């Protein structure tokens, strides 16, 4: 018998998840268009001049920050909501009854989310570069790519954890928004860091994996940072990468422990219905 290879199974799942994404306009809008609207709004409100404390233009600051935000939406938010809804609908249970290895299904979901995260970032940076004159520095590109890969992996694993702990598909958006949005406000996504930021808030931001993602990614777009060294290895943000790796590993381990393939109450608890003499 020709058992399909693991690779072809995962690839098939990625393609199928992508297809579903493109056919779900709401998800596509929030992942790809919504962060772009922030960029437009910020550059209109603040003008695309230099931000005094940072020495970079508004777009040079926000395009990478929002690219990270889009990538986190594509992985964390989408994975959590999509997976929790699929569980509510019984799709996960159906998958469990097929020979598809469970890991291949989850790998397909994550692979698709990572692909969409990359698209979201490319669109954001593309608009930034072409419309708002955002500049890139070749010596920081390796750091940019590594940061992005590690960040996406970290937030995919946290997305699976959020799916695992969300009681239902209805509550998954609440779980993700209640965690991601407050974090975004203290992680240099919407508000540039200034001299007045309290130290403790800075510390809190650094503990969670969003600010390290944003800072490491933004630094690749900061000319003052780019000028410090020509060595691409010297641009790597080891501390920030370490924080994301730690969160990612902890997230996926917890997710694997807590993951459910059936909706809550799937183990049908309760008394059997009384026996009646009707046709039922």
């Amino acid at each position: 018998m020709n058992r399909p290879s693991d690779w072809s199974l995962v690839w098939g799942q990625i393609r199928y998840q992508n297809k579903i994404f493109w056919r779900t306009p709401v998800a596509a809008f929030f992942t790809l268009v919504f962060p772009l609207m922030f960029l437009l709004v910020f550059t209109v409100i603040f003008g695309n001049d230099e931000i005094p404390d940072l020495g970079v233009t508004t777009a040079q600051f926000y395009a990478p920050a929002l690219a990270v935000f889009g990538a986190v939406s594509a992985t964390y938010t989408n994975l959590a909501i999509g997976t929790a809804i699929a569980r509510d609908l019984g799709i996960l249970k159906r998958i469990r009854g097929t020979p598809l290895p469970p890991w291949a299904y989850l790998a397909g979901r994550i692979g698709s989310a990572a692909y969409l995260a990359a698209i979201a970032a490319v669109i954001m940076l593309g608009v930034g570069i072409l419309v708002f004159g955002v500049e890139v520095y070749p010596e920081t590109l390796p750091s940019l790519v590594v940061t992005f890969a590690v960040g996406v992996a970290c937030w995919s694993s946290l997305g699976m954890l959020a799916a695992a702990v969300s009681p239902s598909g209805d509550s998954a958006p609440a779980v993700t928004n209640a965690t991601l949005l407050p974090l975004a406000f203290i992680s240099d996504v919407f508000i540039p860091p200034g001299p007045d930021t309290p130290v403790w808030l800075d510390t809190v931001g650094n503990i969670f994996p969003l600010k390290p993602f944003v800072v490491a990614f933004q630094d690749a777009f900061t000319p003052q940072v780019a000028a410090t060294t020509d060595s691409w290895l010297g641009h790597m943000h080891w501390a920030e990468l370490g924080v994301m790796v730690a969160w990612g590993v902890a997230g996926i381990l917890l997710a694997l422990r807590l993951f459910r393939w059936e909706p809550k109450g799937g183990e049908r608890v309760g008394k059997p219905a009384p026996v009646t003499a009707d046709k039922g």
Partner: protein
Amino acid sequence: MRVPPAIEARRLHKWYGDVHAVDAVNLTIDEGEVFCLLGPNGAGKSTTVEILEGHRPRSSGEVSVLGYDPQTGGRPFRERIGIVLQQQAVEDVLTVREALELYASMFPKQRSVDELIDVVGLRPKAKRRIRTLSGGQRRRLELALGMVGDPDVLFLDEPTTGFDPSARRQAWTVVEGLSSLGKTVLLTTHYMDEAQNLADRVAVISAGNIIAEGTPATVGGRGSAASRISFRVSANRPFDLPDDLSVDRTEDGELTVTTTDPTRDLYRLTGWALDAGFNLDRLEVRQPSLEDVYLELIGEEAGE
């Protein structure tokens, strides 16, 4: 050499907390058999089936499906079974064909997607998104999804609930086709005619116990149960019925003879009518239906 049964359960128990959902169930289903599990809601049908599918762990007992323990059989086991559950969705932004191709790609053995689309009668909908299908069409798609890996054992949990009569006939034809290919089918249903038409054997489950088992024609003593001869007498004068028949009379004038020997009693009755010059109107001899037997069985269990 004896062929091992396709499905076997010995002293199967399932507890949900204090609730004994499945209580010492024994089942033996041979290869190629269509076996039907009947029972009221909450009787333990679905729990039993889900344990056999590997969806649910058992509390105790032995289970073997195609020689695998469903709980540990994993991928090799799932490559050989097909499951059609009651509440199970598929991403409805996919088309019928896309969904079938996706699920087929997971199996080493596959049935042709084109053939399956025809088998379940969804040819006109093949390129439509699943969300545009009617409820009955979706269930037929699920039937096709259950068969896409060319399974040796197919589990059908109430496969035709909500079907219109012609769609049900069509689904029955599909199941008959499977059994003619030597596939084993375990079916649960609420519909007695479905069991009657499809099943080689049926078992009635109530409160977690199998209370009767047999062919649709004999289950619960149906083969030897009393028949009912009902009729009316159109007579313009008083009459006495033969006194060796026990006759019940209803208010609207229908007469009923309950008998375990319908051949003799019918002969007595018609002989008497001919001799007396009476007509027996609306004469009918009725075996108890599967439904009569079923209702009596689960009624007894409920202590009625």
